[in-house]
């Protein structure tokens, strides 16, 4: 599949010719890649550096003339505030709970799609709907389902009228997590399905002959072999869930009742209070959190693939 194999074999080219062709190829490759690489650096690299610069300033747009360099003071303010830490905790709770539920649900849906004796098409079509829907729209659907005036949930039998989830912190987190899980489980399921397809059927057949039950085979064969696929899916989804913004913004506007995530906190300081200095410190801290999560996962992924290579 490497490009070298696709080249027409010219009759024993001189050594210099090869390196020249390689050089030309490299030049072409970089010319082709340059625009995308430059755009990516400009749209992410420059703004993040500028955010770091802003985070070292006292800079409130309501008092733009008071702008001055304050070093790491903004970071001190953020890290000593209880709001930051409670928002980190809220974000982590939402992330861990929703990703855990998604993993289980996603695995079940993937197994249904993988093993179903009929109806795979409709299942695949149906689960792509939550994926394609706009997050804000999905959030409205969930909010209105639990809204005291319109919610069909309260018309259901066994649901007490006194249960008003959107009036409490726990209830709101429940609705936010439900909306998040509903929307993103399909993505998890499709990634896991791709991983399932890589598990060889012969192993299952052999284990069956040896008398292993379905459950044993799932935990002893399928899960270990899927470890890399699971870790990749978890990495994508954890980083995505940690950035949660849209669902909270719609379901509990402003992050009321203690549902504020770190992204909502950043938004409130940057956009509502137009305090760009303090807000940028929050932005940079979120960026660092995301890097830490990614590093942890990549390390986990590295050891798991290394283990697999060692075993086989």
């Amino acid at each position, binding site marked *: 599949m490497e490009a070298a194999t696709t080249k027409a074999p010219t009759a024993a080219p001189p050594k210099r010719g090869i390196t020249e062709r390689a050089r030309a190829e490299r030049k072409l490759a970089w010319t082709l890649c340059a625009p995308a690489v430059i755009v*990516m650096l400009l749209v992410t690299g420059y703004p993040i550096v500028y955010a770091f610069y802003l985070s070292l300033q006292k800079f409130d747009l309501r008092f733009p003339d008071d702008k001055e360099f304050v070093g790491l003071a903004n970071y001190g303010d953020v890290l000593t505030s209880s709001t930051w830490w409670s928002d980190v905790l809220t974000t982590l709770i939402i992330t861990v709970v929703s990703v855990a539920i998604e993993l289980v649900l996603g695995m079940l849906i993937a197994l249904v799609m993988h093993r179903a004796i009929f*109806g795979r098409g409709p299942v695949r079509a149906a689960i*792509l709907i939550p994926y394609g829907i706009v997050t804000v729209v999905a959030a*409205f659907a969930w909010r209105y389902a639990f809204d005291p005036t319109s919610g069909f949930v309260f*018309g259901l039998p066994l649901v007490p009228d006194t249960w008003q989830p959107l009036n409490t912190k726990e209830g709101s987190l429940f609705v936010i997590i439900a909306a998040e899980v*509903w929307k993103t489980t399909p993505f998890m399921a*499709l*990634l896991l399905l791709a991983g399932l397809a890589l598990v060889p059927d012969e192993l299952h057949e052999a284990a069956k002959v040896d008398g292993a039950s379905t459950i044993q085979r799932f935990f002893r064969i399928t899960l270990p072999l899927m470890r890399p696929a699971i870790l990749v899916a978890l990495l994508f989804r954890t980083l995505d869930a940690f950035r949660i913004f849209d669902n909270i913004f719609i379901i509990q506007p402003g992050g009321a009742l203690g549902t504020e995530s770190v992204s909502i906190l950043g938004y409130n300081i940057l956009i509502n209070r137009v305090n760009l200095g303090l*807000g940028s410190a929050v932005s940079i801290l979120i960026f660092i959190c995301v890097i830490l999560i990614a590093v942890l996962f990549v390390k986990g992924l590295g050891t798991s693939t290394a283990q697999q290579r060692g075993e086989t």
Partner: protein
Amino acid sequence: MQHTNRERVMWSIAILVVLLYALIPVVWITSLSFKTPEEVADRKFFSGFSFENYDVVFSDDTFIAALINSIGIAGIATVISIVLAAMTAYATSRLNFTGKALILSGALAVAMFPPISIVGSLFDMWRAIGIYDTWPGLIIPYMTFTLPLAIYTLSAFFREIPWELEQAAAVDGATPMQAFRKVIVPLAAPGVFTAAILVFIFAWNDFIFANTLTSTDNARTVPAALAFFTGASQFEQPIGAISAASVVVTVPIIIMVLIFQRRIVAGLTAGAVKG
């Protein structure tokens, strides 16, 4: 393999559960969109069938403007990122050069980027250079997620193309341009198209940039318009109208997703599994 009746019943139940899971919220908001203001408060899953809410949203200038902004901004962002990504993906899948892995892992890193981290800088910069609340003001930050997604999906698709066919065509006497047009383009087109759909869905879905970098009908896209539709009329929550607007922006995406479901599944998973 023979399947017992019990197996059939069990699979039917499993499939039914998945279908209900996926569809209930969508059917619910569609049902809400057809309710009159009085029926909205009846807390029934289904009741009434009126187009009143659709009349409201389609005669609302803000919604029409938002719809045009969404289509234009997501469309332009898709075209730009697909063109740039196609060049990159061609290079990474077909040419040999050092730095290939760096570009792909760099794109992955950019895809993980938290948008809130650059919202403040962009807000400040865009106001300084005068593109706050304009189409370019959103198209540029959209590149942070559309470009990596496009590069990933297209690289995965391009790796599957049998490029040798180009040589075969040349041997048969085709000019390089003919070989490209008649052989490579038809092979690459479905992948490019799928990547474009995925990228468009992502751009169409954005809320955080649209919310923070726009302020008027000038560039506000549908998700942001929907959010502020509520905020503006706190006293009389336009639940029906928001639901109708939600259905309007959801239907085209659902149709696209259903028509191209096989390719979309391939595109979604290809990058992640091989990466």
